């Protein structure tokens, strides 16, 4: 019963549902994610209106034009005029969608003028991050708690594991308000690097480099995961991005460098 109520609630009134009943794309914190979200909502509303119109006409017809009400069938069966109308109008609507979509896409694909470059390499099953300008590199993989709990019949209640499957040992640290160019590649099979709140995903392809850019506007911790089937542990290679103000970021960078020198001297 509870489930039925939830179904009704959630399908009829998406607005009233609470956090765990998240029904929409996050708006995110980068220009690209926000642009994608706005476009998503625009197209969504257009399709909803189209749906309501089409289904409305059908419903009217189903209610009124039924034999049980004694309705006599008309005999008309073609009209070039209406065919033209309902070819041209959708076409115009599509042009209306294509224009903002094209603008957004051009903006997203422009990776020029970036300040720092992060190279991300997908492995079965973890990520390697390299800060090309600062010569920092490390691996990042699923945290121990999640990794234990995820085993078949681990008898650990996953609801009690903090950020189950969305936590890593070494998060990527990135500065806010900085145009960051991300170079994606992979060492073995395809992977895809995806943090919804930072905007779209791109595939990591062995032997090739793909580029994307982000510019995080708000400090925070953003979680995502690999989004291209990469074998048995595809579900278990999360991504955690820790976005911090620039000054803090520089501090972090120098600590990393010191650590590296320290380990080298050992």
């Amino acid at each position, binding site marked *: 019963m509870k489930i039925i109520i939830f179904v009704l609630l959630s399908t009829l009134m998406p607005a009233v549902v609470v956090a765990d009943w998240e029904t929409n794309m996050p708006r995110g914190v980068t220009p690209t994610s926000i642009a994608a979200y706005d476009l998503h909502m625009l*197209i969504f509303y257009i399709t909803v209106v189209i749906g309501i119109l089409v289904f409305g006409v059908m419903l009217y*017809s189903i209610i009124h034009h039924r034999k049980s009400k004694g309705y006599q069938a008309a005999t008309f069966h073609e009209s070039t005029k209406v065919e033209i109308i309902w070819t041209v109008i959708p076409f115009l609507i599509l042009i209306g969608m294509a224009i903002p979509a094209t603008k957004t*896409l051009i903006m997203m694909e422009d990776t020029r003028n970036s300040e720092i470059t992060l190279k991300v390499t997908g492995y079965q099953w973890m990520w390697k991050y390299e800060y090309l300008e600062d010569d920092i590199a490390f691996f990042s993989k699923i945290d121990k708690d999640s990794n234990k709990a995820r085993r*078949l019949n681990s008898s650990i209640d996953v609801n009690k594991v903090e950020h189950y499957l969305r936590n890593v040992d070494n998060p990527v640290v990135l500065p806010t308000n900085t145009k960051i160019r991300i170079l994606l590649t992979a060492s073995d099979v*395809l992977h*895809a690097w995806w943090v*919804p709140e930072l905007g779209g995903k791109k595939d990591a392809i062995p032997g090739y480099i793909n580029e994307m850019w982000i510019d995080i506007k708000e400090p925070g911790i953003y979680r995502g995961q690999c989004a291209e089937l990469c074998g048995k542990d*595809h579900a278990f290679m999360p991504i955690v991005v820790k976005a911090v103000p620039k000054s803090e970021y520089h501090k972090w960078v120098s600590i990393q460098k010191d650590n590296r020198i320290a380990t080298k001297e050992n």
Partner: protein
Amino acid sequence: MSANLEHAEHHQPSGIMRWITTTNHKDIGTLYLFFSLLMFFIGGLMALVIRAELFEPGLQLVVPGFFNQMTTMHALIMIFGAVMPAFVGLANWQVPLMIGAPDMALPRLNNWSFWILPFAFTMMISTLFFEGGGPAAGWTLYPPLSLQGGNSMPFVIFSIHLLGLSSILGAINIIATILNMRAPGMTLMKMPMFVWTWLITAFLLIAAMPVLAGAITMLLTDRFFGTSFFTASGGGDPVLFQHIFWFFGHPEVYILILPAFGIISTILPTFSRKPLFGYDSMVYATASIALLSFIVWAHHMFTVGMPLAGELFFMFATMLIAVPTGVKVFNWVATMWRGSMTFETPMLFSIAFIVLFTIGGLSGLMLAIVPADFQYHDTYFVVAHFHYVLVPGAIFAIIAAVYYWLPKWTGKMYDEFLGKIHFWLTTIFVNVTFFPMHFVGLAGMPRRIPDYAVQFTDFNAIASVGAFGFGFAQVLFLYILYKALKDDVTVGEKAWDGAQGLEWTLSSPPPYHSFETPPKVE
């Protein structure tokens, strides 16, 4: 269907040999339909494994490797084993009846097309029992992951070759039948819509299946003979596979829907008691969809990092398909408009088809918007999209067709009351299963994962409940079919008072050789 036996020729073998050696379009149609039903249940059972594991977070039932095998096999079986053979079965039964032919044009080839299937699927499914298991790289078989497969790989690839062979031969046969066997007077533009859609589908099959064969052949040689089509260090590119695969794959999804369009265009006029609106534009729209389907393939690969111009081209071309598809939807609505409608089970399924397919089509349009697809891609939003066009799309149309033509095939009527119950259960549960997938997809749940972060729990639980409900509803379908064959509620030549077309001029069930002398059309 055993009712056919009394029309059988005296020299015909009986028992199992009848089915193995038959060249009769009705027998072969029946074989196809039963085979597809079996595959639908096997594929559905695998879907239930998937849904059961996804009922709650954490791994309870299967290990991830096996889960991936289930996903892969589920899709391969549903597409190549359930939907395509069902359509071919319907074509086998209906095309000769609808165009006034005695049989298919190439009956021996017809037998071959069918009998390849059970063998090929046995070979494919048996890999699940291999050490190391079956294929686990998704039905799209992307390298390099698919190259990591174990011993199952050559078996799966050869079975897909065989399925392709079967489809191509079947399509050749259907084209030859339609082009060469029409009754005198039946010009192309007088053909029933179902025949038209199959003619175009057959063309798509012949153009697309060999390309798939090429793609998987390259996989095979990359794995076993040291070629480097998909290896960067040898000058190849893993993305090359995706291009070739989707050059097949996108036409393939229209192969899975065009015959459904034909079915709906047949059923709606019957129960609206009004001719199909805009026949000519329906034909042109179908042809446009088919042609466009060859230039949109890369919309499945927006995230592979294509050059900007490529992304724009494929976005525009993809969006364009909404126009002819819209024409079809509008013509259907206009067919219903001011008709004198009744709502027997086939009609109910057809109406649900239009609504739910349109929802799936509209979400497809959202996917076509590249910047947004960067977010949607490889999430459950995509899974929701394609199940809306495939389950309440293709599967609903097949179910509607079976209800609609069962009286013709067997001379017996199904139980209308149970049919309606089947409809309502199916329609409600299909939405309970697949609608929530839009939400989890948008909220960030990737596809092809056996376990998920806890914030996705609730909608997944609902979807899983829905899937089991949907499964039960299909058990009822089986019972309805069984009951119809067992009970003796017979029908005359014309089972539905609004029905049009040559098939309704024959007895129910029709004679063994459908039209011994071709009828005259107008």
